């Protein structure tokens, strides 16, 4: 199995400029195939449920994410 090495990357300037000048469109709604994203609703549900197994699973997964240098960010949406 190939093992990725955690690295930090620099985007070449010409590639970066091409991204800055293009517009990317994402769907308004996610694909409805039952796939779950670790989101606020899921987090709240697990914490409220008081299920030790679910909480332990969540903790394990968050630890795995932390090891791959993910961050937990909670943002307040700006309403204009």
């Amino acid at each position, binding site marked *: *199995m*190939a*093992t*990725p*090495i*955690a*690295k*930090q*990357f*620099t*985007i*070449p300037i010409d*590639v*970066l400029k*091409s*991204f*800055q000048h*293009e*517009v*990317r*469109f*994402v*769907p*308004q*709604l*996610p*694909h*409805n*195939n*039952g*796939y*779950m*994203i*670790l989101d606020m*609703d*899921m987090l709240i*549900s*697990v914490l*409220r*449920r008081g*299920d030790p*197994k*679910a909480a*332990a*699973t*969540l903790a*394990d*997964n968050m630890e*795995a*994410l932390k*090891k*791959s240098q993910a961050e937990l960010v909670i943002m307040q*949406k700006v309403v204009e």
Partner: protein
Amino acid sequence: MDTVQKPSGDPPFLRNVGLFLTYHCQAACAHCIVRAGPDRHEEMSLNDARDWIRQIASYRNHYVYVLSLTGGEPFSNRKLLRDVMEAAVESKFFVSLVTNAFWATTRHKAKQLLESLPTISFISISTDSYHQEYVPFDRVKNAIWAARDCGIPYYISVVTEDESAPEYKRLTSELVQITAPGSIRTGITFPLGRAAEVSAQLRYRNTDQAPKEACQAASSPCIFPDARVYGCIGPLIDLRHDHPLLLGNLRESSVSEIFDRAETSVGLHALRLWGPRRLISMLREAGLGDHVPKTYIEGSVCNACYQLLSDSVVRTWLRDLQNDADFRQKVAYGRLYYLNETGMLEFGRFSSADIASRSPCLSRD
């Protein structure tokens, strides 16, 4: 579609994997692309499921965190469902389920059933005019109530070929009486599988413009009972040819081998970044305009992708694209820029030394 929903974020690649447990279903919906139904009995063996779950769990230090159990109808074989869920939870996965809710005969029984299963982290309930020929709407209501009472997040998955169709509007107006509009997800029926037999009756809106959106479905591969691994659970599963979203077969390769290859698949990630429209534009520039679709189903990225990959010349061109160093680089850095993903850079042969310095992303709004 209703504007209550906020624009979606891109799902992270390979954090969610689908297990297609069975082709059996109580319903034989006219729109079903996999032709699931009461006469189908192919299902994933428990031994295979356990083996694959173990492999997925040990892939890159538990990189995958959700297993999504789908079909067919996963509740068709409750013993298999329970055993697979236990294996998944034991391996510390979150488990999400996709169901038609046939089992929710009453609120009480629905709640009992959900509580009896290993921890369900999410449930997707399918209903629409096709499902309702087989599964009464009351069962969907019972399942919604039960999910809510059990504290399980859910959404309702509705498909239609036309959002202005009266039956779609009627259904969604009934749904908003019992659930928040944000929990309703609409997809476009696809004229494949059983739906191909009734395609003449489907009232799509067609356009000569390729959809501009990126594909988000290709972030989550799905494993089928025969060990095929697809990059998505869309219409491409109907194509038996070699194409970028047929990731491999677990009878021939391991989960690690298949997932590692998927991390560096140029075609797959180009679809995730820019959707089929970019590939269509590149095909035209390459003088292959005769091989791009002439019309598209409005709003359907899947349709554009399916049409493209149905063409053998396009498939050959995509295979060659894998060796296009410039484009491969663009896709790899595109994943970093737009999706915060370094997988292709890490697995591919890209040199790097410095700290990534990235300008803010373009707004997704």
